[in-house]
């Protein structure tokens, strides 16, 4: 069972619970273990169940990293096919979903590299810039920024904003904050150290905050104009 994190700032800033690393005393057998064991024995219905359980998540991870729908569809299929081929190599040291995510991240980064044939794409790309290190916009946001825009406008803004992040930051933010992997799981999936994940995560969050602030800050005259400008691009 996941540990419940209770520490958060007073009154206001509790984020939804994030999964923590399992401790031996609280460990319970995850239902996936039985499905994976059955799939290893050749039970294709068990593997199909695993696909159905995680294909949406894998698709989302791939789409966030590659920012391309066709690539995300291909990657999702490749991930499950590779997982099936290598099922015997899955030792159960991590969660099955984390294992799938790790394959998805590798496949997605590989796609990005292929797309930019003359330029290497790695988790280190753009991390040496100073952008996102220091907040610059200190305007307060509307109490409920989601009420400013319709659902599809808001989705456009969110997509456009995350798309602007360097892949290395986008990937860390996706795994940690969207997919709720723990910092350790994120580090494991990306082959990074925990301090490196924390550093990139901070900058990813601050960069996104800075960019979204243009739309959500308490200056109603700015937001619609910016939205039109962004749509015109």
């Amino acid at each position: 069972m996941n540990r419940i994190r209770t520490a958060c700032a007073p009154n206001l800033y509790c984020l939804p619970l994030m999964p923590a690393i399992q401790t031996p005393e609280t460990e319970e057998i995850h239902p996936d273990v039985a499905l994976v064991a059955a799939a290893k024995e050749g039970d294709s219905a068990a593997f199909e169940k695993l696909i159905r359980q995680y294909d949406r998540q894998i698709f989302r991870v791939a789409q966030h990293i590659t920012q391309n729908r066709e690539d995300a569809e291909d990657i999702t299929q490749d991930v499950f096919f590779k997982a099936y081929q290598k099922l015997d190599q899955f030792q159960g040291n991590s969660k099955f979903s984390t294992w799938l995510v790790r394959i998805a991240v590798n496949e997605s980064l590989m796609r990005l590299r292929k797309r930019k044939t003359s330029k290497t794409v790695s988790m280190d790309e753009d991390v040496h810039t100073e952008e996102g290190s220091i907040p610059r916009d200190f305007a307060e946001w509307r109490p409920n920024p989601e009420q400013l825009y319709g659902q599809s406008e808001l989705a456009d803004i969110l997509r456009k904003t995350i798309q602007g992040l360097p892949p290395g930051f986008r990937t860390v933010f996706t795994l940690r904050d969207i997919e709720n992997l723990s910092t350790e799981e994120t580090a494991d999936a990306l082959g990074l150290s925990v301090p490196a994940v924390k550093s990139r995560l901070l900058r990813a969050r601050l960069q996104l905050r800075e960019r979204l602030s243009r739309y959500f800050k308490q200056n109603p005259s700015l937001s619609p104009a910016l939205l039109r400008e962004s749509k015109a691009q």
Partner: protein
Amino acid sequence: MTCTDFLAKLTDFFDGNVPPTLMAEVEHHISECKHCEVVLDSTTKTINIYRDHELYDFSPELQTKMEKSIMDRCAGWKTKLKGAKALTRS
């Protein structure tokens, strides 16, 4: 605690990894520094808004199509593997 110290602790803060004594310092700093209070509030909203919105459409049709395609590929591979094994044995 300075604003730089606060920023350095922000990730641990979101992870709930700040020890109580340090938490008191963070809280004290936020209560006195409007800028850091805004940064904390808007960063929290940033994370929550991404977490709460499914940005990419994944329709049941697409899901069914992909599942079928994956299972077909897996079955094809398994058949090939069996054939290769039988060939090796013979």
